Structure formats: C-alpha cells, structure tokens
C-alpha cells in the first residue's frame, strides 16, 4: 500500500515510504519534522503552506507527497544560508512584516516567487502577487514594505520610501 518516494529538501535527500494519500505538507511536517511550513486552511486559500518545488512556489497542502517524488523542495528552513538570513527574511524583520508569524513562512516563500518574476515590483504587483496568501495580523502594509525592502537588497540598492497615493 505504501509507496517509496525520494525528495530533496533544502539540499538534503530524503527517502521514505508513504501512504499515497499523505499530503505533501504533512510529509514535510510529520515525516521530515520540518515544522516551519504551516497549515492554515484546508481549501488552498491561505497559503501558509507555500514552499518552493523545483524553483516554483506551490501550496504543499494541495499536492500529495507522492507527487513530489524526485522533486527539489525548499522550505523556510532552507532560506538562510550558513546562518545568514536571506534578504527576504531580513526585509520581514526590518519592516515588521510579521506579528504572530504563522503566515510568515508561506508569505516569504510567496515573496521569493514574486521577486523571481518581478525583481523590481510595484506596490500593486506585490499586492497582486500575494493574492494566494492570507495574513490576519499585519494588514499587509508592512509585508509590502518588507518585500520592497528585500527587492532593494536583492538588486543591491534600497527601494524608495513608499508613499500613499493622492486621491483624484
């Protein structure tokens, strides 16, 4: 009944026998013990479980572990390198992009995808790019700032301070 799968997570290869119905997010959390990836809903709406699979952001609650057989995965635990925070992590820290922190790992992985597509995103692009991720604490504004901050770091220069748009 169980099936053997092999995945590389944050650079480390893992081989396990899993039930075919096991969700990828449960595989990551329960089998591998990487609990930084969270589960916030059961309908693929909240994005708390967002991880990178083969370089693209996916919702790990929406895939079965067996579907990830052979894949390269990156989770929040794999964002920092050699103890140095990723610019996205730095941005979230510096701009107060998190409060309770529960949505944050998924939010940061979504930001990773967003910045891959738009290295110099407008505020509107950031807000659109977070369509699949819910946060109940921050009101999103500091998350937008955090992603702008990270974008600046990744491009090697700080982003201009954000301004509210005048109403016409």
């Amino acid at each position, binding site marked *: 009944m169980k099936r053997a799968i092999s995945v590389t997570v944050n650079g480390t290869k893992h081989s396990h026998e899993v039930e075919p119905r096991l969700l990828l997010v449960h595989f990551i959390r329960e089998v591998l013990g990487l609990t930084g990836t969270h589960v916030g809903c059961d309908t693929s709406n909240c994005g708390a479980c967002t991880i990178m699979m083969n370089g693209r952001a996916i919702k790990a609650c929406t895939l079965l572990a067996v579907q990830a057989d052979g894949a390269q995965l990156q989770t929040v635990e794999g964002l920092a390198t050699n103890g140095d925070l990723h610019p996205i992590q730095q941005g979230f820290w510096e701009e107060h992009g998190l409060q309770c922190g529960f949505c944050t790992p998924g939010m940061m992985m979504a930001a990773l995808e967003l910045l891959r597509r738009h290295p110099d995103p407008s505020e509107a692009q950031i807000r659109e790019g977070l369509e699949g991720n819910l946060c109940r604490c*921050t009101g999103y504004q500091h998350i937008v700032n955090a992603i702008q901050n990270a974008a600046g770091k990744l491009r090697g220069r700080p982003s201009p301070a954000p301004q509210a748009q005048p109403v016409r």
Partner: protein
Amino acid sequence: MAVSALFGASIRRREDPRLITGQATYTDDMRLPGMTHACIVRSPHAHARITRIDADAARRHPGVVAVFTGKDLAGKINPIPTAWLVPNADLKTPPHPALAVDRVRYVGDGVAVVVAEDPYTARDAAALVKVDYEPLPAIVNQEQAVGAGAPQLHTEAPNNVAFTWKLAGGDTAAAFAEAERDGVVVRQRFVNQRLIPNAMETRSVVAKYTSSSGELTVWYTTQNPHIARFLMSVVTGIPEHKIRVVAPEVGGGFGSKIPFYADEAIVAFCARATGRPVKWTEDRRENYLATIHGRDHITDLEIAARRDGTLLGVRGKTWANLGAYLSTAAPGVPTILHGLILTGCYTIPNLTYEVVGVFTNTTPVDAYRGAGRPEATYLIERMVDLVAGRLGLEPAEIRRKNFIGADQFPYTTVEGLSYDSGNYVPALDKALELIDYKRLREAQQQGPKDGRYLGIGLSTYVEICGLGPSAVAGAVGFQGGLWESATVRLHPTGKATVFTGASPHGQGEETTFAQLVADELGLPIDDIEVVHGDTGAISMGWGTYGSRSTVVGGAAIVLAARRVRDKATKIAAHMLEVAEGDLTFAQGRFSVRGSPDRAKTIQEVTLQAYLAWSLPAGVEPSLEASAYYDPTNFTFPFGTHAAVVKVDADTGQVELRRYVAVDDCGRVINPLIVDGQVHGGVVQGVAQALHEAAVYSPEGQLLTGSMADYAVPRARMFPRFVTGRTETPSPHNPIGVKGVGETGTIASTPAVVNAVMDALRSFGITHIDMPLTPERIWTAIHSQKRHEKASEVKAR
C-alpha cells in the same frame, strides 16, 4: 519618569528571528513520545436529539486507541462554565456538556472523540462513529428566537433569552420629547453581522497526564494560560497545582483564543483516560464551526438632537446572538464592553438602552477583536452621520460640536464611566489634514466621474482599554481579577529575565517589555529575556485581551524593575560607602554625586547581591522583584479615522481609495509595532464594512463554512494606509500608555460605511447593512431608482 533611550524607539522585534527561520514552536509543531491524535466527531445538525451512538466499528478500526462519547465523560468532566456572570440581568446559565449526551444544539457541537495512533487514522475512525439523530426545528436569528413558537434550546432559558440587561442615565424621555417638539429624532435599524475571527493558526491542544504524580500538562493555543489552568481545574477536577498550562508560540487570537473550550477538556480527559499524550488540532472548516464567532447584533436605535446638531439622547434595544451555549466571556461582551461606551466621545447626557442576549442554534459568540466596542462605535458613528445628513450639517462639524471638551477630563459619562484623559479636536484636525478633507469635499462637488461616486467617511472613536480595575471586574460579574503580575530577575552575571502574566501572541511584547526594562535598569536590551505564557514559570496572570497587556502588564513590569533598582541602590550605596541619597543612577551606573568616577555598574551590584559577602543591614541576598499592578481605572484611547471610497454605480463595487488613521494611545513605546497594530485592526474593521459575514441557512447550516466561502481580506483590497498620532498620556497609568490593539478594528468599520453612504447620498440612500457588497449596493441604488420612478408616476 526615566528619560530613556528605548521608550519610543522603533527597534526590530526580538521575537522575529525564530519566526522567520521556521524555528518557532507552535502547538501543532509539538511531538511527544507516545503521542496519539484526537479527532472530534461533530454534529452535522443544528438541533437534534441523539437517539443512539454506535462506536464499535470505530473502536475496532486498526490504530484506534479509544473512542469516548458524551456518556463516557458524564460525571467525569464538569460542564463548561461561563466566566462572566453579568449581574442584574437575570442571566441564565444552562449546562454546557463537553460532549453532547442526548441533544446537539449547533452544527459543530461535539458528540464523540476518537483517539488514534496518527491523525489520518483518527479521522478515518471518526467517520465510522455512527450517530443516530432525530432532527429538531432550529432557529438561527436572535430576534425570531425570542418570538412566540420559536424552537427552544434550553429549558433553563424560556424563550431562548439568556439575559436582559438594561442601562439608563439622565432623562431620556424628556430629551426625546424636546427633540420631537423642536429638533430631530433619527431612527435606524442596524445589523452588526456575525464574523469569524480567523486567526491564521487554528486551535490546537497537546495534553499529557502523568498518573504517578497526578500532573496534567497542557500546551495549547490560548491567550490566557492562567485562566485556562483555573478553568481546566474546575472542569476536570484535577487540582490547580497539578496542572501546568503552556501557551507556546500562538498564531494570532483576536479574542478567539480567550475562551476555555470543551475541546481542551476533552483532550485532557483523553490523555488521562488513555495514559498517552494526546494532540488535537482543528482543521479550518472545524475552526469555523467550533471556535467562537463575533459580533451578531441587531439593534433598533434612535437618537434625539436639536436643530443645531446638539445631541440630546440615545434610546435603543439590541438583540445579541450568543449562539447555542454561553462561551467564557460571552455575557459581558454585548453588555459591559458594549453598552458602557455607547455614547462614544460625545457629551450625550441621556441614554436608555437594553440588550437581550439570545440563544440560537449557532456557534457560540464571544469576544472578537474590539469585543462589543466596535458594535457600539458603529452605532453611534453611523447615527451621528445620519443626524448630520438630516440636518444638513457637515459630518466633521457635528462631531466637533458634540465632543467632550479637553477641559472636561476626567469626564463622567452617562453610562457611568470616568474617561481618564482626552483631547479629541487635535486628532480630528490631524485626520482631516492628512486626508486632505477640504479638497476632497470640493472634488465631490464636481459630481461623479465615469459613474464613480466619491465618498468621504469619518469615525471619531473612544474605547475602553487596559482591562482593568479588578474591583470593577468584580462589580460587573467578571469571575476573575484584571491586575497583572511581573517579576524582574537579575542573574549573577547581570543579565535579566522578565516574567509577565500577559500572554502575547503576535503583539510584540517580548520587544516592548524589554524596551521598558532596558530603560529602567540601564541594561543592554540583548541582556534581557521576556518569559510569558507558562503557568509553571509565572505565578499568576490574566492574559492578553482587551488591549491590556502593555497597559497593565507593562506597568507591572516597570514597577517591578523600579523595585529592583531601589534594592540595587541600597547595595550600591553600601559598596560605595555613601548614603543612598548621594547616588545618582543613569545608563546602568550608580555614581556618587559630585564625584562621578566613584561608581558601580548595575552588573557589579547584581553580582554582590548574589555573593552576599557584604550586604547592608536588613537587605536580603539576590536581586529580583515582583509587582502586581491593579489599575485604578480603564484607559480610554481615542482618535479619528477617515476613509475615502469610490463607488461604481453600475456595478455597486466599492474601491477603498485612501485611509487615514489618527490614534491617540497615550505614550508610544515602539511606533513601528503600534503602526502594525493599527494596520491589522483597520483591515479587520474594513473587512466587516465591505466583505466579511458569517451566514447561516435558516436550518442552521453555516453557508460560509470554509476560507473559500468566507471573505478573509487580501492584500490587493487595500490602499496604503496613512497613520498619524496625537499623544495624550493616561494620567493614572505609571507609563502613560493607553493600549492600541483594538483601535483599528473599532474605528474603521463606521468610517468606511459612512464613506460609502456619503458616496450614495445623491441616490437618496442613507443606510445599507454590512457587508457593503456590490450586490447590496447595486440593489439599493436600483430599488431607490424604481422607488423614485414610481413616485414620479404617482405625481403625474
């Protein structure tokens, strides 16, 4: 008050490194040796008799450890209590069994629990528990529930009435007589719709029982671990000193993690009965059914005013839906936390108000961010706009005219509260300036552009924060104290651990509290650790809710730190062989006045306090102090929020174009964190105005039962917010703070609704109930047009 380096500084949060690296431990991240997993079988019926439960197949399922039903728990687990026994309201407290025995009263009511080796198996087996129900008629609307012939939930509560609470002050009849004669009376029905709190982390419990010692340890998603321990003891019969409750990382609460739920008691029971640790984690759909909801008021309100806009009196009645059982704080939310702030920031001398709390076949309703105060602010702020509209007054000016004056504080309201301090005009002016009010009104004069109507809405609010004086808690029936504890402990090497009875879960108090202690003791902030959320480490605490943690918990911490400093001063004087009065303390150094080279650092003093080789007479070794701060009053933050919307008349779509929040929460410890609290609150309040609603079918099925159906707001729905502040310190709080956790939610809902109604003014529309969805707005516009056409025809 110490002149300080960190009070007022936007430093980065100290809790963030663990949260951004995935190293934080939330309850569901925990794994104990031998741990099992529970799944609770819940009623699919809103109201039914249970005629039979057959759990044999579930028990036989491989991997199942145990199955328990309500009958198994009966006599072993006491009913789940409510902890707010509002007096003089004829409150009924029908029993709430942890698992239903013979009757279920809402969809989601627990009927059995399965314990299994893994969560998938527990869920499989839960599906095998066969429950025979005999459905009964259900009732979900609170106004209908009190009517003749409505289905009855509890024999203890005839007509489904849980309580009738009345509030009166002044001479309301005379005020309305005057207005009827010579002024204006505005009447309106308002619906504060039911909301679902939606903390991103659902509830989760891990319980471990050690039979040899009789000790129960419970890790769980709570905002108030000591209240949880107290109630866990009451419900399970396990002595309080044998229970340890830990709130690990908690992923948001917004009030929904205040209550003591049946589920916690069920999981504790399972751990004790099976001898194995048990974990239970809600899935989101279960969270929507089994975790409390908020708001859900229907209100008939009338307000009396003179022609010049002077507000004379308010009269009204609210039907508050409480759901199927009384949740922990449920009776206090629509009464004490609601009625007592109804006249808001205005000098309204006459009030008559009645709140009827009603049982219905729905999920229990309790405190959701703001808890009673958003509902009240919505009522008064909408009413003030309606009066302004009727009298042709400018919304900003009618507010200004009726504000409590800066020279009137402390101000005793008609409800009997004493507002500590306030200065409402500068906050209003600042908001008007930041939103560019004058220019917007001019732009509005030019009429709609491309069928899009501009609207500007204001909300000037005041709220009850910093809950609160324990004597008041007792007087209003809250079955607890509302003081807070703090211990500041210096270690021999001069590092400090701070223990607080507050239990933050996203508010950043590990940072703000450390800022306070760093200032008081002159310690580097990295030398300070803040510990919270563990009854095993902290003597007592009342938890985090009601914007109280910084106000009450922060004050306790400062008082404890000052006691530490007082003792350190004695020891330093002894070490330096001078009188205490000859010492000054700054930047962590005790220096002799006039000879600053003669000095001891707080670290040197601390070491001597522990070595105790030579202490002054009467001074005991060690260096730590505790404080138990019980405030003398609530705090009353206030402010003005302003919203600008554009409404598309063809589609009914509302676009929130601009939002300004000017809040006065007294002194500000960390402006970045305060901004974050305001932003988050505003989004929740705007979402009530425009998007969110928990909807039940008449049969009691939750139609908005998942995140796919319930409109939790997303980033693209909002413009960039502008925040501003004025600063009016609380005169009675030792650090002058007032609290900011709920202001955004309280202020923003009426600001946005007022803006939309302002936009729709030319259609003759004065009110639409929330949420202001495109459908509702379109329907209102078009029914108004039909109405006008019909009148035209008649006139011809």
